[in-house]
């Protein structure tokens, strides 16, 4: 059973996504901030991280992704963005500043999320 860490400050979103993932036989751990996310990463040893960009600070997601990269983590990161919803920002892959494997836009279709997760886990 693959383990997924969800890091997002939106508690309702985390609950809903966790429900979908558990129903599809994933083991889920959750965190609501950058600090908690790093702690849970160390303790839960996830196979994939589902990471939000904006938490307490607007770039917390990027900071966490960069920190994981510096630690030579090979765990894939699927980054959650909310294009046009709050910030209107559209991010792209950047090996240094946005070292993530893929992006997914909120609001998320469960089928699309599962598709992306399975694809990244296969890699």
């Amino acid at each position, binding site marked *: 059973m693959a383990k997924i860490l969800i890091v997002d400050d939106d508690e309702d979103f985390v609950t809903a996504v966790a429900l979908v993932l558990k129903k599809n036989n994933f083991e889920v751990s959750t965190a609501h901030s950058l600090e908690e996310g790093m702690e849970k990463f160390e303790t839960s040893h996830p196979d994939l991280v589902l990471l939000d960009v904006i938490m307490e600070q607007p*770039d917390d997601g990027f*900071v966490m992704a960069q920190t994981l990269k510096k630690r030579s983590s090979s765990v894939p990161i699927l980054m959650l963005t909310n294009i046009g919803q709050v*910030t*209107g*920002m*559209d*991010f*792209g892959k*950047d090996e240094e500043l946005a070292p993530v494997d893929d992006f997914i836009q909120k609001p998320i279709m469960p089928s699309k999320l599962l598709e992306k997760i399975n694809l990244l886990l296969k890699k």
Partner: protein
Amino acid sequence: MPIIDRQKINQEIEKLKFKFGADRSALLPMLQDLQEKYGYLPDIILQETAHALGIHPVEVEGVASFYSFFRTKERQGKYVIRLCQTISCDLAGKTNTARQLENELGIKFGDTTRDHLFTLAYTNCLGMCDQGPALLINDRLFSRVTPDKVSQIIADCRRDFLKSEFPEVVPSDIKKTGPILDNKIEAVEPLKKALSISRSEIIGVIRDSGLKGRGGAGFPTAIKWQLAGAAKGDKKYVVCNADEGEPGTFKDRMLLYEKTGLLLDGMTIGAYAIGASKGFIYLRSEYLYMRKYLEKALDKRRNQNLLGNNILQKEGFNFDIEIRMGVGAYVCGEETALIESLEGYRGEPRNRPPFPVDTGFQGNPTIVNNIETFITAALIVGKDSDWFKKLGTEKSRGTKILSVSGDCERPGIYELPFGITITKLLKEVGGENAKAVQIGGASGQCIARKDFEHTIAYEDIGTGGSVIIFGPDRDMLQVAENFLEFFVEESCGQCTPCRLGNPKLLEGIKLLKQGKCSVAYLNELKKLGETIQLASKCGLGQSSPNAFISIIENFGSEILGRIPQEEF
């Protein structure tokens, strides 16, 4: 009126298209050059420029009429004398200088002499607040222009400034230095260091330092750079906001001149960090005299491979900087208005989101930072973040460069750590007798004596650098009137609360001065001010009634004294 040859104009416009490009962003520099040549922008020039750039003449007319330094109705004189009318120059006696200028030239403000030699105009803040009254003649700045100096200056103009005793560049008056102004680090060293580490490490050092934007809003610099760096976009831009227009602020003028190398280092480091290849310095028109100096500095850097392709042998790092001139609009200090202006539009703030870090210049990711922010960022990258973190408060790290003017013994530029109380600041500058201090310029707050233990810090009283001191004899209603006149003139007019609300507040002040404003009406005005704060579109509009409200709240006894007795 001289006849303007259409064919000749078109030939000139073609040359300008070659110089500035043929897209909309070339509009402002083209109009600036044409005005310089013809003395004003008559319809024929506006129409032909519109035709050449493929835009509607009404659009061009809209742009030309927006900016105060463009003149569309009448040919201006060979010498355009612009006298600063903002608060610090007002306190320094600008009214007497204005009368002397009118007497000397025999014209009123707003008029041009019959021989088309002189035009008299008022302008807002020239960045000489500690050396007022100040005036600008074309691109030449004059400080401490007391009435007795007027005839000499006029005589100098008539002699085309040959053998003028006035300096070409007025020196800044630096009163107290700190780690930024005192630093001995050579420009270029920070850039060399930046290019030896990764982009994420550069942003990491800045994040660790806690550097926040020095323009006043205090947005964390590292977050801005990170978001722009991660934003999707083939083209990214770095913009230096050198549109220091907040009344009472003059430290950027000094930094532009004294710390040019570090500023250009900071911009280049920012470009490397976010992946930009083009930068702009948006220089306010009042600082036109500095353009040649900055162009020379840019050329020197190009020759040293500090700008251009593969900078310092860093393969693939290409970056260059262009200077774009403002045209006299305070609102262009707001970053989205500045971008609009850079693109050749009226300087009207945009809605957010989207933010410039994602959708900035021509729809591309753009960072807009203040001069002081770029310099400080360069120093942090060049040394480390420890020296910076040791100074200031937890939420406002480092030092702030303050422009101090008004009623004190030692006006000038001071570098002081964040967290200093107003009492200590006043002691430092010799203004202990002050009855009020305006922190943050016209859009800031007027602090009364009872609040002098408050600190200058983002979490307490934030400022972009302006500190104006009012002595015990100053009429605070006069102060409020000056600030509101400023906003009435400088409102971009885009949103109703700011455009119509501020003239209403100003009208109220005039009624108060005549003793014709009731307590009930004064309360209504205060509520109107609060509505402007809530409902205006941009930060400048939202802060426009701040001074009015704080003066009404803090100096009610002075204000109420003018209300007719029967109202009580």
